């Protein structure tokens, strides 16, 4: 358990409407930087702590609905329970940590920052990833990293069907088994640079004890980058 840095502001979603909480969290950075905020009784509400843009630490004491910490910038958001669809979608920077499970499309299109999911994640995790880092402690569902463009995606458990379908330049590291690879996704040998990226992410996400050499890397075979009659079957 991390300890809170300053006097936390405590919002109880049973009492304060989410709109007011989010409005507060969007306040002027000078007043928010370095602050810690606790949100109690989230009860699966959607859109908690979306659009944050200052150096603030938010802890959600329970389960969050869709799009928790969506489009996050700079802030650190911890969800002590599980997260619904699209947690940290389109995140730009900062850290989002889900202590439970995450539903579908976690980190969809995320451009930067780090999403840590301690448990399993659903379908289409890291779909269209655009540069963020994603570490999943458990397994991920089918069609994860679909069209992933950039960023690093670490899976400590297994991956479902069609992993990395139509992937661009994102890197995937899987410790367990992969049910099947999607079109144009292939096994890669891990370079020393990539091994370092992986090792750093394992440390940052609380998995320092896990051996980076126990992962298989995947990425784009780059055969679908250009329209070509020979690829017609894959279109």
């Amino acid at each position, binding site marked *: 358990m991390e300890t809170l840095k300053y006097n936390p502001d405590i919002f109880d979603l049973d009492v304060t409407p989410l709109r007011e909480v989010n*409005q507060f969290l969007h306040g002027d950075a000078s007043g928010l930087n370095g602050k810690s905020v606790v949100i109690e009784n989230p009860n699966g509400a959607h859109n908690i702590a*979306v659009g944050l*843009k200052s150096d603030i630490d938010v802890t959600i004491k329970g389960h969050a609905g869709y799009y928790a910490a969506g489009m996050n910038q700079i802030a650190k958001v911890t969800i002590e329970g599980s997260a619904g669809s699209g947690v940290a979608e389109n995140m730009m920077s900062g850290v989002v940590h889900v202590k439970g499970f995450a539903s579908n499309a976690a980190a969809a299109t995320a451009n930067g920052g780090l999403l840590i999911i301690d448990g399993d994640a659903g379908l289409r995790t890291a*779909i269209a990833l655009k*540069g963020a880092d994603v570490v999943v402690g458990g397994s991920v569902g089918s069609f994860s990293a679909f069209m992933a463009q950039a960023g690093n995606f670490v899976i400590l458990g297994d991956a479902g069907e069609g992993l990395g379908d139509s992937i661009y330049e994102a890197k995937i590291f899987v410790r367990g088994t992969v049910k099947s690879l999607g079109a144009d996704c292939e096994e890669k040998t891990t370079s020393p640079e990539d091994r370092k990226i992986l090792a750093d992410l394992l440390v940052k996400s609380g998995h320092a004890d896990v051996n980076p050499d126990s992962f298989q890397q995947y990425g784009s075979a780059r055969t679908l980058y250009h*329209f070509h009659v020979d690829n017609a079957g894959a279109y």
Partner: protein
Amino acid sequence: MSDDKTKDAVHKTPQTTPRYSATFDEYTNSEIRRAAATGIYDIRGAGSKRKLPHFDDLLFLGASVSRYPLEGYREKCGTDVVLGTRFAKKPIHLKTPVTIAGMSFGSLSGPAKEALGRGATAAGTSTTTGDGGMTQEERGHSTTLVYQYLPSRYGMNPDDLRKADAIELVIGQGAKPGGGGMLLGQKITARVAKMRCLPEGIDQRSSCRHPDWTGPDDLEIKIAELREITDWEKPIYVKIGATRPYFDVALAVKAGADVVVLDGMQGGTAATQEVFIEHVGLPILAAIRPAVKALQDLGVYRNGKNSVQLIVSGGIRNGADVAKAIALGADAVAIGTAALIALGDNDPHLEAEYQKLGTTAGAYDDWHEGKDPAGITTQDPELMKRLDPIKAGHRLANYIAVMTMEAQVVARACGKSHLHNLEPEDLVALTIEASAMAQVPLAGTSWIPGVTKF
């Protein structure tokens, strides 16, 4: 038979003139040959090129004895429009109902985006970003800028979302309802690639479904997220390609849209498969009335603050089209192709260059190849220099002013003190098809196929 005899027979038997097949016409045959040679479908820009039932098939009934007209120039005929009254703290106020449709930076050059911004701002209307994000050229020169939120989310970033005046959540486009974007390698220059986070020079195919929601219940949560992030300030538009307009509009409204943008199959595109452009979707004429019916059934049609506004697009060319779209129930229109022509696209003065590209002015549609001699649909730094954004912006502003005035001419003739007072009762149709689609009577009759008995 000797050769001489055959010759004689040829001379004596009357010959029929060479006859092309209506089914296997010249274009069709050329496409078969192209497909046979390449093994890949045809990709092009622009909208449907076939003849479709359209606004030309409608006429206004001016005023006469039973209704009286307004004096041109002296009596006021309002043209302003307010969009996003339902939930947004800051609705959009425009001087004219003619808006600029979303066209991506990437498909269009920087100077073209700047020209659109300049022209629209001078005309008192809005421009819209597109697949690929917001550029400084456009934000800087557009007083009112609508930010598109698309399935690909290329260049999507919350700072730009907050900089926008409205947000348009794009579900589909009339040219390709059910399809994603396409931008071929020639146009994925370093700048475009960086904005979209893609490798330079690849043939980009963007997704057709949003990555983090499926279905109308999710859409409602997604719209709520966009509102939360922007603190409920900005109107949220939902753009759909015309396919099942009644249901799609109803679901968009229920999901919380402030404005619905409805794009018919004539609507232009930067690039997609020819088969998609010509064979999927409805002409805009057939889509407006069902969309308006959905708004009416949900109690949000022209109902004060609690209204959802309707913007329609797809083949809008002049003030008559604007007036007809509004008479059928739209609050505003959007123009894409026409705006590009006003900037200088397909201009006859470039005929020699179009010839070199194997085409002719007015027919050039290989926008995906990025060789546009007018400097509009290109990322070539030399070609784009040819477009002067100030002059082109002027032309666009002039053109929008003409469209607006033309719509006023028609509205005054029908006795209306505001364009929005035009109504279906002001219209008749020239063809049975148009009559059925627009649900206005066939000229000279009281017959509306599907509504009244002949």
